[in-house]
Every structure is written in C-alpha cells, then in structure tokens.
C-alpha cells in the first residue's frame, strides 16, 4: 500500500495511452510483415502496455524496494526459462547432426 496519492488525470492519461497502443498493435497486424515482424511488434507493444499497468496502476513506481526485488526476480527467472528453451528451438536444423543421432 503506497501512501502517495497519484492524481486522477494521471490515471486517465495512462488509460488513453494504453488504448492508443491497443489500436496501434491491431493496426500493425494489418501490415504485410514476415511472421517474426508480427511477433516482435506485438510483444514490444505488449511489454510497453504491461509496464505502464505495473508502474502506474499497480503503484510499483511508489512501492518499497522489496516489491522491486520480486518484480526483478520474476522477470529474470522468466528470461532464464525463455532463453534456455529457445536456445534449443531456434537453433534446430542450423547445426549439423551429431554422430549417433
């Protein structure tokens, strides 16, 4: 619980940005991009939107450091899981078959 009171106009401005980003992400899906382009665009905009929600709506901006430890640890563990898994899936076929396979 943060004692800092954020003004209503800040919250409404953040919602406006979130709605604009939603329109943008749908708009980008109409552009003739390669599959990877859609993934990068979609996830970048999603990350921006999620950051706004976490920082402003969830008051992470005014939260104690302990809360930040949880947020950072969470993201780091998620990155470990994704990077280890995709280091396999994304490189399949690009390496020669090992003897015995």
């Amino acid at each position: 619980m943060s004692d800092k009171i954020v003004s209503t106009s800040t919250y409404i401005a953040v919602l406006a940005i979130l709605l604009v980003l939603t329109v943008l992400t749908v708009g980008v899906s109409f552009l003739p991009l390669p599959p990877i382009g859609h993934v990068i665009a979609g996830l970048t905009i999603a990350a921006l939107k999620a950051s706004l929600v976490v920082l402003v709506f969830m008051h992470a901006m005014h939260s104690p450091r302990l809360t930040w430890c949880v947020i950072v640890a969470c993201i780091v563990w998620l990155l470990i899981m994704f990077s280890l898994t995709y280091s396999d899936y994304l490189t399949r076929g690009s390496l020669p078959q090992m003897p015995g396979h």
Partner: protein
Amino acid sequence: MSLRDTLFTPAEQTALFDHTFLARERLEEQYASLPHQSETAAFGMWVFLATEVMFFGTLFLAVGAYWCLDPQTIELASLELNWKIGSINTFVLLASSLMMVLAIHATQLNQQKQAYRYLLITAGLGICFLGFKAVEYYIDYRENLIPGFKFDDAEWIARGVDASRIGYVKIFLFLYWVMTGFHALHVTIGIIAVSVMAVLTRRGRYSREYYSPLDVTGLYWHFVDVVWIFLFPTLYLLGTHTL
C-alpha cells in the same frame, strides 16, 4: 470538565477514537503498525503474482516453441481466431483496470460512496469481458476450432495447411483454449473478489487509514489485465490480417 476535554477538542477526540478503534480492530498483533501490516500484505500478493507469472509463462513458452518449429502454420491458425472480439475485450479489461485504480484513489480520499461505485463498474466490466468471451467461444465452436471435439482436417488443408502439419494447428488451438480458459478463470475469481470488496466498502470497512484488502485485490485485478495484454498479441495477432 475532564482532563480529556481540556487536552483535546471534540474533533480530535473523535479522530483519536477512530484511530484506536481502527488499530484495535484491524491491526494484527505481529505487526508494529497498520502501514507495516499493509506493506506485508502487498508483498505477499506480489510474491503470489510472481508464481502466477511462472504458471502463465510456461504456456507462453509453449506457444513460442511451436511457433519456432513452424511459424507459417501457426500464423494460419492464429488468423482464424476472432481478433475483433479479442480487441473489444482488451478495451474492456483496460477500462476495468482504470475503474479499479479509481476505486482505490477514492478510498485514499475517504470517498467511500465513489469507491463503491467504481468497484461495481469494475466487476461489471469483468462480467462484460466474460460475456464477450462466451460469444467468442460459441463462434469458435461453430467454426470447428475445438481440436479433439469439433475439428475438421479438410478445412485446414483447404486453407493451405500441409496435411502433415495439422498437428501444429491442433496444438496451437489447444493452447488457445487452455490459456484463455485459465485467464477467464482468473477473471471470474477477480470478479468475486472485487464484489466482496464492494460490499465491504459499502459497509464502511475501508478508509484512508486502512484499505489493505482493497489494495491487494487491485494488484490481482491489474495482474489479470497484464496477462491479457500479452495473450492478445501472442494468440490473435501472429498473422497478417486483411479486412
């Protein structure tokens, strides 16, 4: 005139009574103060949400893994999902998040009636979300998008999917049902929690001094919104749409 009357004005006496009453009723004995107790509760919710991130994270990981193996087929499957209802639901959830944060804001200003109204709108928008979701599920049912139950291989071959690749379509749709299903379950739990908070706010349980349960419920509700923010592009926006 008693000593108390000479030391404090009537307004101060009321404030003092409120404070000690609040402290007696709300403060658990293991905490030094109400802020201490509220921070601990919020911390507990953040840790719980971190475990939820790991839960949903594995499902996102699975979509990504199959996408790595065959992006073209996953793209064709994604294009069959109803992005219009998905977009509407994104707007609905984002608006509900604003209502939730405004309810907490009103409580911080001791405007319980306003807070009650905002909480009702939050729960209402949550129900709207589930309503749209139900309509979408029905359309998916009609369009044979339920692998293992109502699914037609021939339709997908006609859409240009190689017969040997139908499995990728099935696994993507399966993940779609699991992910949106679990998300809808979270929304349902959220609606119940927000409704309970609305009733308790109406009864005057929360004020500027103490609104920890409301704060923690808000964290959960926003988290459900964050999950949807990632679900939307991961499931609905993988391909190039045309009007």
